[in-house]
């Protein structure tokens, strides 16, 4: 998987928000916001290919979780990002 071009993470009033740089219009009535751990992963995988296993490792490095939980969460994140249309 890879981040689609131009989806940059911004901090707006303490919210981690994905703003598409390429698109002309930014619609604040429907915006993708990330929680702390998603935002952390997003920044870490910027500009490189990744799989669930990579996210899992990143989660293990940052949070006190067991490997199974981390892998389940990593897969969930990939599913959510795919649904949101921000990775390919």
């Amino acid at each position, binding site marked *: 998987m890879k981040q689609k071009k131009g989806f940059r993470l*911004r901090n*707006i009033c303490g919210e981690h928000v994905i703003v598409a740089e390429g698109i002309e219009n*930014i619609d*604040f009535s429907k915006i993708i916001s990330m*929680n702390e751990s998603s935002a952390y992963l997003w920044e870490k995988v910027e500009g490189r290919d990744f799989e669930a296993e990579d996210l899992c490792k990143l989660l293990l490095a940052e949070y006190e979780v067991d490997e199974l939980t981390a892998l389940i969460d990593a897969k*969930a994140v990939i599913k*959510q990002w795919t649904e*949101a249309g921000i990775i390919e």
Partner: protein
Amino acid sequence: MPENNSTVIIKQLPNDEFLPHVVALVEEGHTVTLPLRGRSMRPFLEDGRDKALLAAPTDINVGDAVLAEIQPGHYVLHRIIEIIEKQVTLRGDGNLGNEYCRIEDIRAKAIAFYRKGRTKADSVTGLKWRLYSAIWTRLYPIRRYLLFALYPHFPRRWKMRK
């Protein structure tokens, strides 16, 4: 840990912190769709229902609805009713009083509005907005009564006494 983020959550962010980001995006050349709060642009725009499409403030004229920083950190989306030299007078369509700012305090210009949940915008160059604007602004002398007729509210002390 990651949570389900596929749900739609409506978040109200503080204007004085949030709107500078909107302004920054407009300055970068984006247009911004902004959900509107407040009743000051009634009757065309309704609180929590409608959205404005904002663009960079080029070619500012009387009659335009603009996002202006009338005091540091205090933003309004109101209509320009007068420009003299660089002094701008603003008045919300649903308001009776004026606000004042300089032309450089105008941060963005509304170029269209999404109303009543529609996906098609009403452009400010379209007939509907222009017709509404012409009529509503000319009716200013009786606006107080029109607003009362449209949105009746009575001071508590006038309400039926038990």
